C-alpha cells in the first residue's frame, strides 16, 4: 500500500468504482442469461438486465458488508477469538452467551441504563416534539424560522463539538444551566420548591434504576434518608451517577426536531372538516385534540416510537464525549453500544464482542416486532 493516506484512498476508491461497474455488468448479464434460459421475451430480458445492473451496487454491498459479517460474527460468538492472538480460536459453545446474560454485570448495567433512556427519555422527547408540533400547526408569521430553530439541533446533533459545549453548559458549579436555575429559584422561591421537588423525584427514580443494575439499593436508601433536597440544591448533571443519564435525556429532548416534523406532517393530514363540525357541536380545543387529532395521529406516534426506540438503543456519542475516562460515571450511564465498543476495541475480544452484537441485534428485532404486533391495539389507520 502507498505511504500517502490520501493517495491511497483515491486509488482504492478508483479501484472500487471499477469493481462496482464490473459487478453491475456481471450481475446484469447473469440476470439476462437466466431469463433467456427460461425462454422469456427480449423485452423481459432487457429489463432483467437493467434492473440488476442498477441494483448491483446495493446487492454486492449487502453481501460484502452485511451478510458475510453477520455470518462470521455469528460463528465467532461461539468462540474465544481475539484479533491480536496468533493461535486459532477455540470453540466455546454457548459459554459467551451464558456469561453475558448471567454473570456480566457491565452488560446488565448497560441494558438497564438503556432501558432508563427508553422508558424515561423517549416519552419526554416525544411529548416535547408533539407539543412543539401542535404549537406550530397553524398559520402564523415566521413559522419557517421557528421550524428551522427547532430542527437545527438535529443537524448539529451529536457532533462532538456541540456535545463539548453541552459539557461546558452542564458544569455543576459554573455551568450556565445551573447558574440560570439558581437565579430563577432565588428570584421566585415558589419555583425553588418545584425545582427541589423535581430533583427529589429524579434522584429517587435514578437511584432505583442504579439499584436495579448493581443489585444493591444502598443509594436509594441514602437518597430517601437525606429527605427533601436543601434549598440551595441544583442538579448535578455530569458530575454524579444520579444525574449522568438525565444529561443524556436532556440532549435527546434537545434533538426532538426530527420527530416534531413527522408529527407536523401528521397534523397537516387531519381533515379540517372534522374539527369544524366538532367545533359546531361545542367541543373545546383540548377535547378536539384528544378525540380527533390524536387518534388520527397514532400512525405517526407509532413511527416515531419505532425509530426513536432504535435510536435510543444505539446511543453512543454523548456517553463517549461526556463520560469517557470518567470511571465512576461511565458505569452509571454506559449504553449497550458503548459497552460493545469497550469490550471489542479496548480488549479486542472479538468472540465476546460478537456475542454482544448478536444479543443487541436480537433485542432490537424483538422490540421492533413486538411493537408491530401491538400496534393493532392502538394505532388507527382510518385515514390511510
Amino acid at each position, binding site marked *: 500500500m502507498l505511504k500517502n493516506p490520501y493517495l491511497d484512498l483515491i486509488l482504492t476508491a478508483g479501484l472500487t468504482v471499477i469493481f462496482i461497474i464490473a459487478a453491475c455488468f456481471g450481475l446484469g448479464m447473469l440476470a439476462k442469461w437466466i431469463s433467456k434460459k427460461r425462454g422469456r421475451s427480449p423485452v423481459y430480458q432487457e429489463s432483467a438486465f437493467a434492473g440488476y445492473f442498477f441494483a448491483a451496487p446495493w446487492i454486492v454491498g449487502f453481501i460484502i458488508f452485511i451478510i458475510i459479517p453477520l455470518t462470521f460474527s455469528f460463528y465467532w460468538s461461539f468462540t474465544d477469538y481475539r484479533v491480536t492472538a496468533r493461535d486459532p480460536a477455540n470453540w466455546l459453545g454457548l459459554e459467551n452467551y451464558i456469561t453475558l446474560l448471567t454473570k456480566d454485570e457491565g452488560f446488565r448495567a448497560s441494558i438497564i441504563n438503556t432501558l432508563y433512556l427508553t422508558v424515561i427519555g423517549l416519552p419526554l422527547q416525544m411529548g416535547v416534539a408533539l407539543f412543539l408540533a401542535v404549537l406550530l400547526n397553524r398559520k402564523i408569521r415566521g413559522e419557517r424560522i421557528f421550524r428551522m430553530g427547532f430542527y437545527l439541533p438535529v443537524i448539529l446533533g451529536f457532533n462532538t463539538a456541540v456535545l*463539548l459545549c453541552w459539557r461546558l453548559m452542564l458544569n455543576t458549579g459554573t455551568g450556565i444551566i445551573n447558574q440560570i436555575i439558581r437565579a430563577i429559584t432565588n428570584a421566585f422561591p415558589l419555583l425553588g420548591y418545584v425545582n427541589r421537588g423535581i430533583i427529589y423525584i429524579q434522584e429517587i427514580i435514578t437511584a432505583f434504576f442504579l439499584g436495579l443494575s448493581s443489585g444493591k439499593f444502598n443509594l436509594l436508601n441514602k437518597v430517601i434518608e437525606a429527605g427533601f433536597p436543601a434549598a440551595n440544591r441544583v442538579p448535578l448533571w455530569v458530575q454524579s451517577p444520579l444525574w449522568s443519564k438525565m444529561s443524556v435525556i436532556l440532549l435527546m429532548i434537545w434533538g426532538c426536531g426530527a420527530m416534531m416534523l413527522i408529527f407536523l406532517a401528521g397534523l397537516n393530514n387531519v381533515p379540517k372538516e372534522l374539527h369544524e363540525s366538532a367545533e359546531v357541536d361545542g367541543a373545546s380545543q383540548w377535547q378536539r385534540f384528544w378525540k380527533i387529532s390524536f387518534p388520527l395521529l397514532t400512525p405517526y406516534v407509532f413511527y416515531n416510537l419505532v425509530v426513536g426506540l432504535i435510536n435510543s438503543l444505539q446511543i453512543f456519542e454523548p456517553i463517549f464525549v461526556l463520560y469517557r475516562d470518567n470511571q465512576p460515571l461511565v458505569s452509571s450511564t454506559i449504553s449497550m453500544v458503548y459497552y460493545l465498543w469497550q469490550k471489542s476495541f479496548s480488549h479486542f475480544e472479538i468472540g465476546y464482542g460478537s456475542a454482544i452484537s448478536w444479543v443487541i441485534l436480537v433485542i432490537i428485532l424483538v422490540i421492533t416486532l413486538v411493537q408491530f404486533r401491538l400496534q393493532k391495539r392502538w394505532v388507527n389507520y382510518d385515514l390511510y
Partner: protein
Amino acid sequence: MKQYWSILKSILMYFLLTGATILMSFPLFWMISSSLKTLEETNSPGIIWIPKQITWDAYLSIFQNQNFLRSYFNSVFFVTFALAGTLISIAVVSYAFSRVDWPGKNFVFFLMLSTMMIPPQALIVPQYVFFNKLNWIGTFNPIIIPGYFAGGAAMIFLLRQSMAQIPKEMDESAFIDGANHIQIWWEIVMPLIKAPIATVATFLFVGFWNSLLTPLMYLQTVDLYTLPVYVSTLYNINNTVQQWPTIMSAAVLTTVPLIVVFFFTQRFILESVVISGLKG
C-alpha cells in the same frame, strides 16, 4: 370578549414559540460567546452573556494548532469522497427500485428495507476484522469505501419515493427515441429530482461530518483524525483546567459548515422529511 381571548392566545403562543426557539439555539449562542471569552471568564461564578472585552486569542491559538488544521483538512477530504460515492450509488440503486420492473425487485426491496432494523453497531466487530485482514486499519478506506455500495437504506427509500413520482411516459418516449437506461437515468430522471438529491446530500453530509464511532475505530493516528475525533481529544478529564475558550473556538469552526449547509438546504429538508416519513 372572544376577540380579546384570541389575541391573548396568539400572544401566548408567540411567547412560547420564541422561548422554545431561544432555548433550542442557546447552545449555539453559548458556544460562540464562550469562544470569545478569556479562560477566567468561562469559569467565572457569575453569568457573562457576552464578554465585555471580546478576545480572539482562542481562535489565534487554534489556528496555530497544526493537528487541528490537519483534522479539518481530513474531515473535508473524507466527507468529499464519501459523499460523492455514496450519493451517486444511491441515485443509481433508487433508479432500479423505482423506474425498472425486474424479476425479484419486490424481494430485494423488502430485504433493503429490513436492513434498516440492523443496528450498524452489530456489524462493526466483524467488519473491523474484515478490514484488518485487508490491512485497511489506519487508513481512510474503511470509513469511505462501504458507502460506495449504496450505504444507507433510508436514503435509498427517500430517493426512490421521489423518482417513482415522475410520470412513466417520459421514459417511454425516450426509449422510442433510442435512449438507453443510463441516458434516461442521467439526462431525464436526475435533473427532475434535484430537490430530493439536495436533501439526501445534506443528510449524508451531516452524517459523515458528525460521525465519530467508525473514524475513532479505524483512524488510529493523530495525522488521520477527522474533526470529531480530534476535537474530542481537546477535552481531557485529567486536566485540572480545561481550556474552554480554545475548545469552544474549535467547536465553532467545526459547526460552521453544518450551519451553512443547513441554511441553504433547509427549505428542501423541512419539506422532504415529511414526504419520506410515512407515505410509503
